[in-house]
């Protein structure tokens, strides 16, 4: 019984993990059709923000929840102004440009901070469940993933900003004709997507080692989740994360992490063969 509870929590954690990894990328890709190949490095930047600010004595929660999204968000706006805005509608070019950016970021961070593994301890300690104990931080991850999705969904659904964003996403020319400055919307979207990625990177920092090259460990999972999810941001991210996260985690628990990774890829492969537009390309098409 205890073990069953642990398994369920682990699955939820795996799902939340994919949600956090994919949300920022999903916002940028879903709304702007820009493939941000530097996504992993944006995560890394969030991680470094937490490491560096906790080193100078900033409270770890302030670092994770405020500084990481703020820094990476501002960086995202800068990148959008300097690089991305010239490349809208040119998917391949933007892919190449962001790939170059990712190399630049790895090199730059290595130059400044060196290539040593850095890290902060996981806060909050552990929670006992029957005979087992798990990090309490797991619940933070699960909570934030849920909060993330809820926040994105409410903004898009209930606010004027959300309405403008959706209009721009669906028909930029029409939105422009109605007086929306789509360039600003794009800039803001890229900034918000980056901020969300920065927050994810910040949340990640206390769990693993932070190194300049860490992005590559995460970028695959993020892309697979976003592509499998399809066009709708909230429904896509949630459905793909749930499906892939539970399949891979169940396999990991039953066999081992090698098969868990393989199962995730296999599931994504089968899904994309059946639903080439992603889950929300066929199902939940009208959802956000």
């Amino acid at each position: 019984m205890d073990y069953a509870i642990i398994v369920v929590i682990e699955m939820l954690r795996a799902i939340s993990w994919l949600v956090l990894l994919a949300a920022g990328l999903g916002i940028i890709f879903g709304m702007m059709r820009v493939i941000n190949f530097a996504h992993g490095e944006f995560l890394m930047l969030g991680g470094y923000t937490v490491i560096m600010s906790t080193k100078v004595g900033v409270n770890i929660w302030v670092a994770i929840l405020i500084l990481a999204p703020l820094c990476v968000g501002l960086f995202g706006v800068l990148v959008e102004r300097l690089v991305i805005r010239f490349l809208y509608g040119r998917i391949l070019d933007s892919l190449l440009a962001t790939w170059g950016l990712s190399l630049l970021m790895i090199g730059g961070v290595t130059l400044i901070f060196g290539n040593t593994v850095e890290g902060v301890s996981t806060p909050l300690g552990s929670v006992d469940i029957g005979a087992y104990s798990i990090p309490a931080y797991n619940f933070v991850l699960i909570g934030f993933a849920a909060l993330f999705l809820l926040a994105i969904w409410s903004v898009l659904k209930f606010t004027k900003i959300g309405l403008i964003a959706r209009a721009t996403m669906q028909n930029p020319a029409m939105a422009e004709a109605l007086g929306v400055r789509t360039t600003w919307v794009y800039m803001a979207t890229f900034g918000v997507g980056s901020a969300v990625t920065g927050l994810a990177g910040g949340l990640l920092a206390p769990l693993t080692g932070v190194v300049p090259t860490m992005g590559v460990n995460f970028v695959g999972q993020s892309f697979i989740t976003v592509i499998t999810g399809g066009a709708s941001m909230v429904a896509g991210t949630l459905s793909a994360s749930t499906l892939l996260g539970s399949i891979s985690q169940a396999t990991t628990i039953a066999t081992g992490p090698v098969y868990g990774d393989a199962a995730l890829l296999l599931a994504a492969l089968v899904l994309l063969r059946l639903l080439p537009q992603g889950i929300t390309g066929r199902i939940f098409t009208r959802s956000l």
Partner: protein
Amino acid sequence: MTKLSRRRFLQSSAALAAGSVALPYAALADDDAILVGGLHDLSGGLDTSGIPMNQILNLAIDEINAGGGLLGRPLKPVIYDPQSNMSLYSQYATQLALKDKVAVVHGGITSASRETIRPIFHRFKTLYFYNTLYEGGVCDRNEVTLGTTPAQTVEKLIPYVMNLWGKKVYTVAADYNYGHITAAWFKRYVEENGGEVIETEFFPLDVTQFGSTIAKIQSAAPDIVLSALVGSGHFGFYRQWAAAGMKSRIPMASTTFGAGGSEPIIMTPEEGDGIITSFGYYPTIDTPANIAWKEKIVAAYPDNTPVLSELAEVTWEGMMIWADAVKEAGTLDREPILEVIESGKTYDMPAGKVSIDPKTHHAIRDVYIADLKDHEFIIKEKYSQVQPADTQMVCNLEEDPNANVHHEISLN
């Protein structure tokens, strides 16, 4: 590009720190210099290991030059940065052997990089020193291998921790040849000591989440967790293990934790204390030789003191053993140098006594067991002159001097 700037930087910083080093070096004629090849990853994923190794290599060269060089000629480093990239490794190895015509090469960190360059140096008869702990099994008379192998570290570590903690073992290891071979050695020695490995799990290097494994370990309730995890992704295991409150419940031992030197410094005492490891060198070795060596390093690199580990110390050994052999042979020719190396001399090194097994060209050396406390490894046990028994099982260079293989040592 990298080669020039970094070398200049290292040389100038070393010269600044110790003027005594710079003077005799300048006095020796430079165009007559003996070239020494260095091939360590100075950038890319492995540079945390490669940079200290390169710093120590340069320091050793400076020290030899300060003592008047070799054969009346100064040494000159030829350093390339293969950037953790195997195609650059083979390119630079060929260059060192054919274009630069260096007298010896020190370098290669992973087994993959070593197996890329070892056959090249073998073919072109360029003497090669590999200065890293690895899984054992290289049989090549042209290579001198000074780092520890599993038969040296695992063999000592397992009975030690089983005696402390119990007989049921759970192994977690990296999913490539080093991890698999080390896990097999874990199993062998656990069983030889009357214990049992209840589960062995392998993790690809990009795995960063260990929650389900930690739950599985809890449910299996072993007496000991043995880790052969590698790299920054796997670093998360130790952290998540501590966050799950497991530190105080199940003790852990490893032959990889802190191998590159940095993990024990990054982990807080609450996360890291009590992890027991076994290596051929620890900075905490309390001998005059080691203390003097460490002072020398700090003097040469006051601002960017390298993190010391077996990798760095063994690189020093490689240079010194080669230099000693050149002096004794009185020539740079490979054959007489190899004969000196095979003569069974014992060398006094910061890590203790080291001699080279003529059958395998691996080091017979002191092995230590240490317990992490407050960011430092406190040495608990020292084993003198441990043989590389694993490689001795498969390799005999006296019988077959032309051998050129990396055996996967089968334990069945």
